[in-house]
């Protein structure tokens, strides 16, 4: 790891060391600093959940309260003597509750997710308040939480407890930052950007969501336990909705996605509360003012305090990097490498030596009375370029989505090298070696070209789910070779560091193929790879498809007949959801039924 990458850790260490000596002069008591770091600690987990993975939880108070009350109950009731063990137990308990709540919550997306977390938070509040009040003290909370003992020292309130919080916060920050930059963190960013594509690339989206949910719960649990220790008292309002809401506000004000943001936001919130409350007329207004600032930040898409600071420091560097990007040559041609030998490939497991690469058996998809695809059977020879053609609405894209397991067929099944894949879902199918580039680009727009392609390669190297939290996302040599080769193959090496949203359309189209390629698929489905490209780009992309087909099987949907007749060795024609004909390009060109249904109509009304 390069030393330059440790700048944030170094700055944070310096700030934490200086804070108790400097900030006391501007209205920060030790107690205030401790509470700021405690909020910052929940915030680290919350920022992984919301900032990194895009999951907006209003339920963090449930885990904060769980960690706090489990630790406090163990200590106050003399079930455990060691504060350290009690903190660990509280953290673990919060993680377990997070596992349960998360298992329900991550099944749903967007508003559903947020509502469920909120509802469980409220459930925790009522559980603490009445049925469990014999253990939690109900509305009174649990007083008398002891301070921890470290060797010969009692960490009494004031500076000693501050140092404890500072060390734990720093450790939490280092871990959270490693997670962000790990392969695990790369998948989280992909889920935030485009969860469907992350799953299509071979990552178990529910698995990662649940894992980060539990990580956030663990952070909240530890912070909850520490709250009791700081105050010698565990307050019941740890469970309240306001706790969750305050965390959200602090995170937005401090800067979402910066890890440090929630702590910065807590500094603003708590300092204002402690220092403005005394001033008449203003005292009641501080929360109103913060609320207005919050709304403005959300409306104007501002980055928050830490976000603006980071932007200030990294902006110039990034602008320079983007200015240095060479413009593409005018003909827009990618320069494919000779037959890309990607280091990471799906294992070739054929059940029989003569098994077709891909086989559809009576596949149908009905939407109510609409028969989008009806009883289609065909097979693809290993190593072939096989085309599926048909007029608009023939069911080509629906068929492709069933072949790649994105949607389940109403009837029939699909076999990959003789192995049935129907019912496995797109993530498992991808892991078994089928890849697809989509008709409409499904890219991670906020990430760079390299990060887009890396995401696919990581799925091949790491499988559906893995919690490698500590290593760097770019530290797996085989993945990096795969990324370099796949990027070069689709002719985007000169764009590697550029955020995808600034790429022109033709390059985005090639990146779409590059992602599918980098999954290490043995069977690649290309859904209209030439759509929307200029004539020059079409020529180059045809060459690219031929190049890709060396060493893997390609199934292609395309409206460009010249390209199809040049590339494909076998063509399947769909018409109104049914298979109309199948054969070599010559046979299809001669086929009267195809000409009537499709080619004639195309040449008359729809110049390709």
């Amino acid at each position: 790891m390069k030393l330059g990458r440790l700048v944030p850790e170094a700055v944070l260490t310096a700030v934490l060391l200086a804070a108790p000596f400097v900030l006391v002069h501007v209205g920060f008591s030790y107690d205030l600093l401790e509470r700021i770091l405690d909020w910052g600690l929940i915030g680290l987990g919350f920022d992984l959940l919301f900032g990194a993975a895009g999951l907006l939880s209003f339920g963090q108070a449930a885990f904060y309260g769980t960690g706090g009350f489990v630790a406090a109950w163990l200590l106050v009731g003399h079930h455990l003597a060691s504060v350290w063990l009690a903190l660990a137990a509280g953290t673990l308990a919060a993680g377990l509750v997070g596992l349960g709540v998360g298992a329900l919550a991550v099944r749903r997306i967007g508003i559903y997710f947020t509502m469920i977390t909120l509802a469980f938070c409220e459930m925790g509040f009522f559980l603490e308040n009445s049925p469990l009040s014999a253990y939690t003290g109900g509305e009174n909370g649990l007083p008398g939480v002891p301070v921890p003992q470290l060797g010969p020292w009692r960490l009494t309130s004031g500076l000693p407890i501050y140092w404890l919080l500072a060390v734990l916060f720093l450790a939490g920050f280092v871990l959270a930052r490693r997670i962000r930059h790990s392969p695990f963190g790369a998948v989280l960013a992909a889920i935030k950007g485009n969860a469907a594509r992350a799953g299509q690339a071979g990552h178990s989206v529910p698995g990662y969501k649940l894992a980060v949910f539990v990580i956030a719960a663990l952070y909240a649990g530890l912070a909850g336990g520490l709250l009791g220790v700081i105050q010698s008292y565990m307050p019941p309002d740890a469970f309240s909705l306001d706790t969750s809401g305050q965390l959200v506000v602090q995170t937005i004000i401090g800067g979402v996605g910066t890890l440090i943001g929630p702590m910065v936001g807590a500094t603003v919130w708590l300092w204002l509360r402690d220092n403005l409350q005394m001033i008449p007329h203003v005292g009641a207004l501080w929360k109103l003012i913060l609320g207005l600032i919050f709304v403005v930040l959300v409306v104007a898409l501002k980055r928050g305090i830490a976000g603006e600071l980071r932007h200030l420091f990294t902006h110039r560097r990034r602008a320079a990097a983007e200015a240095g990007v060479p413009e593409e040559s005018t003909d827009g041609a990618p320069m494919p490498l000779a037959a890309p030998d990607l280091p990471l490939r799906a294992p070739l497991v054929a059940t029989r030596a003569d098994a077709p690469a891909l086989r559809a058996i009576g596949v149908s998809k009905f939407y109510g009375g609409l028969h989008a695809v009806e009883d289609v059977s065909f097979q693809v020879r290993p190593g072939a370029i096989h085309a599926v053609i048909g007029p608009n609405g023939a069911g080509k894209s629906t068929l492709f989505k069933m072949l790649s397991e994105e949607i389940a067929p109403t009837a029939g099944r699909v076999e990959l090298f003789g192995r049935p894949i129907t019912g496995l879902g797109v993530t498992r199918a991808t892991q078994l070696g089928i890849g697809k580039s989509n008709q409409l680009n499904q890219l991670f727009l906020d990430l760079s070209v390299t990060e887009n392609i890396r995401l696919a390669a990581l799925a091949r190297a790491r499988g559906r789910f893995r919690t490698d939290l500590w290593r760097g996302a770019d530290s797996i040599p085989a993945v990096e070779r795969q990324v370099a080769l796949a990027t070069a193959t689709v002719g985007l090496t000169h764009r590697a560091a550029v955020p995808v949203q600034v790429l022109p359309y033709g390059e985005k189209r090639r990146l779409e193929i590059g992602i599918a390629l980098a999954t290490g698929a043995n069977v690649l489905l290309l859904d209209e790879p030439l759509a929307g490209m200029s004539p020059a780009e079409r020529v180059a992309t045809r060459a690219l498809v031929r190049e890709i087909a060396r060493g893997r099987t390609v199934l292609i949907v395309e409206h460009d007949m010249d390209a199809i007749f040049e590339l494909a060795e076998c063509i399947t024609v769909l018409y109104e959801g049914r298979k109309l004909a199948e054969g070599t390009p010559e046979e299809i060109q001669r086929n009267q039924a195809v000409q009537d249904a499709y080619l004639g109509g195309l040449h008359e009304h729809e110049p390709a």
Partner: protein
Amino acid sequence: MPSTALLLSQAFNGLALGTLLALVASGLTIILGTLGVLNFAHGALFMLGAYAMYVVMAHTGSWLLGLLAGGVFMLVVGVALERVLVRLFYQRPHEDQILVTFGAGIVIVEAVRAYFGGNTKSVPTPSWGQGIVRLGFLFYPTYRLELIGIVAALLFALYLVLYRTSIGLVVRAGIEDARMVGVLGINVRRAFLAVFALGVLAAGAAGMLYAPIVSVQPDMGGSFLVEAFVVIVIGGLGSYPGAVVGGLIAGEIVSLTSAFNTAYSEVMLYAVMALLLVLRPQGLFGSEGRV
């Protein structure tokens, strides 16, 4: 086992709570269903309605005037909120919509706190609602009894607006496919404004009606917001019948559970929601994958 009389009176209490929840949740659900926006400010708007009733009652003593003036006030608030804020967010991610309405809720709550202070206000019961009615099996406060009828009438009026008028047709079509409605040449923006204002009015009306029987203070909306969420999860997101039936079910769950064990009344509500999420995640009246 509690006595039959207790169960009956709790069932009746559940009806009263259920109609309140149904009214709050119906406003939430028509906004969600039509605009796709989960309005986190809904609890604050409920509170604002209660304060509107408090102000008018304190100055004029007229309940009816409070309801009318409060209604107009809530419509103005709804229109302003949609025009100034919510409209900017139709194309933004759900998370941003949640954040901005949550922020708007904070601003409303804190503005009320800054102006009225944080202590509880009491709103008098109207003269025709005072006293207690004997219902055979139980004694019941007159106003609460009348409220059940008033709220049922309001819910029926909302039903008529949604299912018997052209704006209602636009709203229900918008729930299915807002873009298609726009393609048909219908002014979706104006329909959206009307729906948002109507949803805010529903929240405000609930606040006004219940002001005399709940403690009116700035934070009163928070727990109603979450319970309304539970109601629409039970009923199915964006479904008006779901909100009404879900509200009644939620009210009965809370009331009947407390006949057995008061401590678990609220907890049971969330437990039922969790169970439903496992067994029927789209809710009672929702269709899969709509929101």
